[in-house]
């Protein structure tokens, strides 16, 4: 098949390659390009000419990628270079980063946009400190996927023993990193073993080739698809009748009619249209560039952020960050720098350096892996850190003259990252990843009930994202997932309808889950009372549990009184648009009191339950539910029929 015939459907994978000098990185890339037929004759001819001039017999594949004259002369790579190639399945963008001079700066740059990192280890030298550093930086930058290519396997006679011992050693170390998946592959870039074509010389290896992983690794879920974030880039006003806000959706999705908030002003409006030159859209999602128009004329300018009303980022002036220093001049505490975050540039000063990662001296440390890891994340010189030099990484606190709208970097790369610009040189001197807002110890103790020393670790041990994506689950289960939220007075008949619906769905092969007050009350929520505050917490927990089931592919039926709109909106904001279905089970209070299946109304009226919905606590009817069921006059069968019809219409279940 021709490499380009499926261009319009193929998707994009960005990856970065890291390795030390002589690990064979450029050769690996040259091999990938050559074996996927992405090298032109005249380019190959030019490289052959060089080999001839230098009197070498074999052509040097690395010459295909080393771009600058100085590099070709010295046979080294100086700067990040970008390469492109394509197979029928994917288009690839490679950020090729050199392993020696200023490697931190370059690797951080390359990793900042990558979905995957290939780390090269020379089979002859085994796992070096540098190999660990590369893994550490990839983890710090939240590169989700990793290939460890054990290169030059031909030079150790294709030895399984050598390969296995490297895998064991690196695997032990990488468990402490925040990487979604790691694949170890024995390769010879020079000979082409297991790069594009499976090698016959490694019969003991039955895993994928490098290209196979690159073509098949699942990256669709690497983007944050839940939290809608739209930094305003440019205001478009061609005439008095049109006022649009241009920008790129950096996370989540948006539909016309959705209620939005503008930050930092906090003004509320609704999306009127999603405008593009190709026509207005019914839905737009990351990473599309679009123009939004709003229902109301409000004052919005570049640097503002449009978000969903009930899914807000933090708006902060004091931020706690991991900072990579990239300037030739050392970091100056208290100096006035510019900070660019999304489309917003503010003045910033570094108020405090908390610790630094000792990445530069690491290779002189002969610590055990565990100690090495500890040293990576906590410097032994906690007290005397007062600057960062070029290529050093540390944790710092920054004070900003104006607030920015942020998410934690590990939740959202786009709203969690920033660059620092030196106003004297205009050079980009720093790159930062936001951990959160700065909190005082008092605040921390108050909130957490304890100091959070353990939580200072920037590398989390647990893996956040599911190895199996929701899309894969939906494909296997053959139905969409959704959270169906039944709200209504106690005794209205929510559970009865939900239980019948569950039985019905289950019998047609749908994966279901049923959550109700009883299930949570006796376990997860047994610490909660009937107070307003505790009932809000109860709904919050219910929502989070529903989300877990949702993310695992179930149609989740939830029956909770959830009397307040804000409670239901809170849960709604956890679930992607269109997958939270609000069912209002309507029944008059009079009938509910008469039914009183648990005797709760009686207890409430006797004063045993102080705040009971309908009696001495309000019920706010949904303003815009997906369906209203009349549980007072209609039969269960009729209500079930209506429910099923709605689920079919929404495409959750098949017709």
């Amino acid at each position, binding site marked *: 098949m*021709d490499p380009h015939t499926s*261009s319009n459907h*193929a*998707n*994009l994978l960005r990856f970065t390659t890291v390795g030390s000098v002589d690990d064979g990185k450029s050769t690996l890339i040259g091999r990938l390009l050559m074996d996927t037929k992405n090298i*032109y*004759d*005249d380019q190959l001819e*030019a490289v052959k000419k*060089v080999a001839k001039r230098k009197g070498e017999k074999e052509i040097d594949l690395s010459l295909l*990628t080393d*771009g*600058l*004259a*100085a590099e*070709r002369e010295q046979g080294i790579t*100086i*700067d990040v*270079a*970008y*390469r*492109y190639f394509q197979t029928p399945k994917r288009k690839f963008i490679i950020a090729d980063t050199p392993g020696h001079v200023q490697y931190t700066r370059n690797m*951080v*740059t390359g990793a900042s*946009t990558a979905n995957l990192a290939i780390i090269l280890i020379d089979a002859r030298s085994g796992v070096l400190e540098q190999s660990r550093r590369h893994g550490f930086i990839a983890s710090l930058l939240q590169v989700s996927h990793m290939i460890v290519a054990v290169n030059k396997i031909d030079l150790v006679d294709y030895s399984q023993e050598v390969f296995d011992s490297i895998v064991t050693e690196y695997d032990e170390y990488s468990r402490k990193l925040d990487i979604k998946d790691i694949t170890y592959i024995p390769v010879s870039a020079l000979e082409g073993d297991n790069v594009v074509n499976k090698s016959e010389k490694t019969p003991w290896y039955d895993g994928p080739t490098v290209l196979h992983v690159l073509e098949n690794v699942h990256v*669709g879920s690497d983007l944050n*698809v839940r939290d809608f974030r739209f930094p305003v*880039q*440019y205001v*478009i006003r*061609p005439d008095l009748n*049109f006022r*649009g806000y241009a*920008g*790129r959706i950096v996370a989540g999705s948006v539909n016309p009619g959705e209620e939005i908030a503008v930050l930092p002003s906090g003004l509320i409006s609704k999306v009127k249209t999603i*405008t*593009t*030159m*190709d026509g207005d859209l019914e839905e737009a*999602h*990351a*990473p*599309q*560039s679009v123009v939004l128009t709003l229902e109301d004329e409000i004052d919005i300018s570049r640097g503002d952020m449009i978000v969903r009303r009930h899914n807000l980022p933090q708006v902060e002036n004091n931020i706690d960050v991991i900072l990579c220093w990239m300037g030739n001049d050392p970091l100056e505490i208290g100096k006035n720098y*510019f900070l*660019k*975050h999304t*489309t917003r540039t503010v003045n910033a000063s570094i108020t405090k350096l908390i610790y630094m990662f000792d990445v530069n001296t690491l290779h002189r440390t002969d610590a055990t892996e565990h100690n090495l890891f500890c040293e990576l994340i906590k410097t032994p010189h906690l007290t005397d850190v007062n600057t960062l030099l070029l290529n050093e990484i540390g944790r710092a606190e920054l004070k900003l003259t104006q607030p920015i709208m942020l998410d934690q970097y590990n939740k959202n*790369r*786009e709203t969690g*990252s920033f*660059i620092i*610009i030196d106003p004297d040189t*205009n*050079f*980009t001197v720093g*790159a930062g990843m936001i951990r959160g807002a700065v909190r005082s110890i008092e605040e921390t103790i108050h909130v957490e009930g304890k100091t959070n020393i353990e939580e200072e670790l920037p590398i989390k041990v647990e893996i956040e994202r599911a190895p199996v*994506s929701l*899309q894969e689950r939906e494909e296997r289960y053959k139905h969409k997932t959704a959270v169906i939220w039944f709200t209504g007075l106690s005794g209205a008949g929510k559970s009865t309808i939900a239980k019948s619906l569950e039985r019905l769905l289950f019998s047609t092969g749908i994966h279901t889950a049923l959550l109700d007050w009883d299930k949570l009350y006796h376990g997860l929520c047994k610490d909660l009372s009937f107070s307003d505050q505790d009932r809000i917490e109860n709904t919050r927990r219910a929502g989070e549990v529903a989300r877990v089931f949702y993310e695992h592919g179930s149609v989740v039926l939830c029956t909770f009184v959830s009397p307040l709109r804000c409670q239901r909106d809170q849960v709604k904001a956890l679930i*992607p648009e269109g997958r939270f279905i609000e069912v209002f089970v309507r029944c008059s209070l009079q009938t509910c009191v008469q039914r009183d299946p648990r005797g709760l109304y009686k207890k409430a009226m006797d004063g045993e339950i102080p705040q009971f919905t309908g009696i001495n606590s309000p019920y706010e009817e949904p303003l815009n539910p997906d369906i209203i069921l009349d549980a007072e006059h209609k039969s269960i069968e009729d209500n079930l029929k209506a429910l099923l019809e709605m689920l079919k219409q929404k495409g959750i279940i098949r017709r």
Partner: protein
Amino acid sequence: MKDINISYLKQLESESIHIIREVAAEFKNPVMLYSIGKDSSVMVRLAQKAFYPGKIPFPLMHIDTGYKFPEMIKFRDWYVKEIGCRLIVERNEVAISEGTHPQKIGVDKCCAKLKTQGLLGAIKRNKFDAAFGGARRDEEKSRAKERIFSFRDEFGQWDPKYQRPELWNLYNCRINEEESIRVFPLSNWTEMDVWYYLKNEEIPIVPIYYAQEREVVDRGGILIPYDDMVKLKPGEKVEKLMCRFRSLGCSPCTGAVRSEARTIDDIIKEVEEASKSERENRIIDMTSDSSMEDKKKEGYF
């Protein structure tokens, strides 16, 4: 959570639009260099999309060396009128009146005078602080290392060893007076991406990209279109051949390739099957191993 599966061409489009808007928002006086070629056509379409339903808020600028094919000039004037965009045409009149020609002073010097000097003079005269170029990183090895926002000093020169790090999608737009930035919104596009986009979006291109019978001189395997400006060297003869231009430059230095491709689909098929890269027919890149890098350092696109 649903997965995002957006075709990569749409993804590239979105990124380029983001880049173009950043420049319009952060610079006082940007300009888009318009070379009339296929990459320029894509870049102009992206700029239209970036500001729709508004108009492109900056002018296009063509550096005319006086050696452009007449079809290119005709197309240029028609196209800018069609899309309602302001066009600035700049020429290094001094060099042109001196009769600067590659066969007289050599290819490198000719480029330096007509293109590089022409461009640097125009940027200074018009006080532009940012200039978009349609260059792609896959075109040539030294371009692979250039930033999307490429800083130029007050002399318009590029220092490959002192480039600003470029992370995430955050572009540093800060410069001092007299300095400028070259911006390459198509950095991550390949030649194939450009052709597919032209096809999908039905963007018009200069007709000489399509094959037709032309009078050419075969000069070391490169077909030079024959006209009054070409002086036959001993042993050379004029031939009539079906051929087309794979990329467009100045007529004395741009060779045609043998081709039967008369439609965009033919071209896509041809380029996919081609075993030579698109700049093979450009004499300017072949003078030395680092000819493009040297030109770029001096301020060439």
